[in-house]
């Protein structure tokens, strides 16, 4: 789930005011039917696959995976040896990464939103690009850059001193911190937007110096900081990309990889895998629940209406402005630029990393190989087309379902049914993609399911379902914030003045949500394109998504071709985003773009 988790930013980005109470009677009939349908969908998408898998941790016989009805043997096994080391490593790395990411992100967010630092929109945009970039791509870029005779040496830089350090816990921490940075940035940014200048003004007027002023207003954004730490922790715990690419190769196991290897090794040990999965979920639910509680309690007064005003900025002198811009640029370069640079160079330079010293030189052969392989290996063409098709279907279906769920989440009259849905979605965010993938393998291969419910094991629809299940909670929470921000009176005014339900939605809600709808779709589409954990576990025979094809090239020492494929995939992701946003800008009225939730401010 980590690969596609964009959610948690949403519930923290724009928590919104308390919606106005609505009449239970008016909605009761529709809600029962809708609520039941939602539960059925969530049950088959998430609850059943994950639940049945987790039961194996203590009761393998329940699903014919062992002889015991109840045992703690596998629990003990999971906490010792290689798997135990993986859990311990995940725990301390996630803790460290969350604090690093939040402190860095807070600094950047404050500079971007509350000062006149240069290129503000660029830094915000880079945070979005960071969000889109999967961790396995980041690792690939760093690897290509730093390995002996790698991309750095190809451009004349001696990085051998860094190589040994990077290929260990340090490298893992750097990449995971980079990956967690955008989550923390967006949450803290939202907190800063709720921090009006009047709080600082009041402190200064009443005699507080800069330090005391900062200490006085800091508690106002403390909820955002706590949320950012919680979400960064959860995202890092759930990450599979770094665990699969870097963690494994440097013999630094992480829990998500040990889980994957438990079912991919022979014989597969589903029970140990289930214990690891349970530990991952148990460790990630509290931070996410904390984030939800914190954001619910700290009310934001940012409301989408005709009366929204912009915050005031602190004016730096030219020297301070220059230095702060350079500082932020450096951080962004390390997080985003370095992996992209490494990957691009690695895709254009032959004999990179060749210890024989055959000499690195510029080439297009890797791209040629990627598109037209000279051997029986797969080209990127079909897998990339398949990934695009998956992305299109998954993003569209997820978007529609997410809007429905988001509206239910923010409605005030849902009662306990709404609360359960909220908890389900919240808990689902904590389910790593690898756990979901394994759960699907297990659940949809049960004879009862294949005989009496649906037989989609080892098919593309199963992969699609898993991808939707992975994206839905995140997408829902991503949309819940903006949905909750829309004043109910805007819809009420439309209804009172003659518009039916559909026209009301089309003329009031949809324009205000258009940007979040587009961005939500794009995020899900690109995440699906680059999704690794679920794709690796569930891809049907002879129908490999692009990420799986790329990994197989990298694993078979064809890193040049694999890197070229990575760059092509990344270029396509960014290309789709640029084209989609350009189309949005061209076809939508100006009013739609003036208001509502903004990506880059």
């Amino acid at each position, binding site marked *: 789930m980590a690969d596609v988790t964009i959610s948690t930013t949403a519930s923290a980005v724009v928590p919104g005011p308390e919606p106005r109470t609505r*009449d239970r009677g008016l909605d009761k009939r529709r809600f029962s039917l809708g609520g039941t349908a939602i539960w059925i969908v969530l049950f088959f998408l998430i609850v059943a696959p994950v639940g049945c898998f987790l039961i194996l941790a203590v009761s393998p016989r329940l699903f014919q995976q062992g002889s015991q009805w109840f045992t703690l043997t596998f629990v003990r096994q999971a906490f010792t040896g290689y798997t135990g080391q993986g859990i311990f490593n995940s725990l301390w790395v996630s803790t460290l990464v969350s604090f690093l990411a939040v402190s860095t992100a807070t600094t950047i967010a404050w500079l971007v939103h509350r000062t006149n630092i240069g290129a503000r929109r660029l830094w915000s945009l880079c945070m979005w690009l960071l969000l889109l970039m999967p961790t396995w791509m980041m690792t690939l870029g760093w690897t290509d850059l730093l390995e002996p005779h790698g991309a750095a040496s190809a451009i004349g830089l001696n990085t051998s001193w860094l190589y040994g350090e990077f290929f260990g816990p340090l490298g893992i921490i750097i990449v995971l911190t980079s990956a967690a940075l955008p989550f923390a940035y967006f949450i803290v940014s939202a907190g800063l937007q709720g921090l009006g200048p009047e709080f600082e003004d009041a402190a200064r007027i009443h005699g507080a110096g800069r330090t005391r002023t900062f200490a006085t207003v800091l508690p106002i954004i403390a909820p955002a900081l706590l949320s950012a730490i919680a979400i960064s922790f959860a995202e890092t715990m759930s990450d599979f990309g770094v665990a699969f690419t870097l963690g494994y190769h440097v013999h630094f196991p992480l829990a998500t990889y040990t889980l994957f290897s438990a079912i991919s090794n022979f014989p597969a040990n589903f029970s140990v895998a289930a214990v690891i999965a349970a530990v991952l979920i148990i460790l990630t639910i509290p931070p996410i629940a904390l984030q939800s509680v914190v954001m619910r309690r700290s009310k934001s007064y940012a409301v989408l209406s005709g009366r929204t*005003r912009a915050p005031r900025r602190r004016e730096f002198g030219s020297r301070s402005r220059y230095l702060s811009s350079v500082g932020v640029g450096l951080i962004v370069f390390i997080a985003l630029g370095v992996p992209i640079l490494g990957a691009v160079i690695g895709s254009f330079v032959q004999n990179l990393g060749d210890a024989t010293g055959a000499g690195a030189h510029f080439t297009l052969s890797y791209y040629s190989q990627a598109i037209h392989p000279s051997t029986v290996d797969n080209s990127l063409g079909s897998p990339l087309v398949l990934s695009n098709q998956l992305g299109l279907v998954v993003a569209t279906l997820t978007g529609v379902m997410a809007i429905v769920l988001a509206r239910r989440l923010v409605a005030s009259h849902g009662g306990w049914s709404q609360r359960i849905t909220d908890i389900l979605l919240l808990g689902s965010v904590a389910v790593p993609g690898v756990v979901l993938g394994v759960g699907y393998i297990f659940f949809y291969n049960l004879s009862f399911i294949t005989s009496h419910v649906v037989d989609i094991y080892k098919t593309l629809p199963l992969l699609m379902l898993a991808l939707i299940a992975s994206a839905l909670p995140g997408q829902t929470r991503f949309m819940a914030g903006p949905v909750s921000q829309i004043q109910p009176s805007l819809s009420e005014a439309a209804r*009172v003045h003659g518009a039916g339900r559909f026209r009301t939605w089309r*003329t009031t809600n949809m324009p205000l949500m258009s940007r979040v709808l587009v961005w939500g779709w794009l995020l899900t589409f690109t995440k699906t394109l680059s999704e690794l954990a679920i794709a690796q576990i569930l891809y049907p025979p002879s129908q490999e998504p692009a990420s799986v094809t790329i990994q197989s090239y990298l694993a078979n020492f064809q890193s040049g071709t694999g890197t070229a494929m990575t760059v092509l995939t990344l270029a396509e992701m960014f290309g789709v985003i640029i084209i989609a946003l350009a189309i949005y800008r061209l076809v939508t009225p100006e009013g739609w773009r003036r208001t509502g939730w903004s990506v880059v401010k």
Partner: protein
Amino acid sequence: MVVEQLCKDFGEKVALDCVDLTVEPGSFVVLLGPSGSGKTTLLRCVAGIERPSSGVITINDVCVAGPRTFVQPEKRKTAMVFQDYALWPHLTVKKNIAFPLAMSSRSKEQKDQRVDDLLERVGISHLASRYPNELSGGEQQRVALARALAADVGLILFDEPLSNLDADRREQLRIEIATLTREAGATAIYITHDQSEAFALADRVGVLNYGSLVQFDTPENIYRHPKNAFVTRFTGVAGECAVTSATPLDDDFFDVALPFAPSHSFKALGIDCRAGDPSLHFFVRASGVALNAPGDDDGVRAEVIDVAFNGRGYEHVVKVDDQMTLTKVFSVRRFERNANVKVSFDSSACFVMAAQGSRSS
């Protein structure tokens, strides 16, 4: 518009308690009450954006809400001016106003002309292409008013439209609302918690408290013949105190003895008053209090606590013994703080009634 036995609950909270109300065509009715009295809930039920728990609402002899009926808001042919304006931020001023005309049968030219006329009428033609967040509060409220008038419907609902405006804008816009609504010949239901606003606008005022319609009458009658202590207090008293005794006189008046002036007797209108009721209180309107020099024969001794100039004269806060403090006591002449004065009461602005009356009897 007729409301019969209208009830609305939010869980255990009773927002409306069997309200009966009839609004004549073309009249301007103001619903007045404190926060939580149910006036907004009543308005929203009429608009159709809340569903009543029970009761019947009829608009133009058509039942729009009843035991087996609920007409959707877009079908009720009403218009509404919201407290937070509810202007769509992605539409220009012109498009906001034109919204209700989208479903009408007029031609495009007629619709454009109507919008232009309304822009002109509310004085914001120069703002037609602006967006709501570029307007001041008063300008936004004008747009909201124009939008409601554009609908050309028989019933316009106002949900405390002036509460977010500053004092001078409020007065100006109040006059425009009254004028434009009456020019359009529409029936208006307007809610506010401001008594002076209610009296200035209304043909009839409905006072609500705890979900009940306590009194529904002309502003004059509500002011001169309030139904109980709540209505009396909410529509403005200078002061009140417990009575020592109350003896009935002719014409519903009572001879009242007050603790701070045992040798004086005061004449006051009795409201559901029984002689000998220990809970009786004496109420006096600010308009019924006269300030005199200390040497005057007329009145009881008092002391000035505070004085404020209001343009036409002075408003004083006066303490009569320790029993009663009188506020907003007007005098053309200024009496200084701590000055001794005498106060006298005009019996037409004095009432005696049970102190705790709050709901309709």
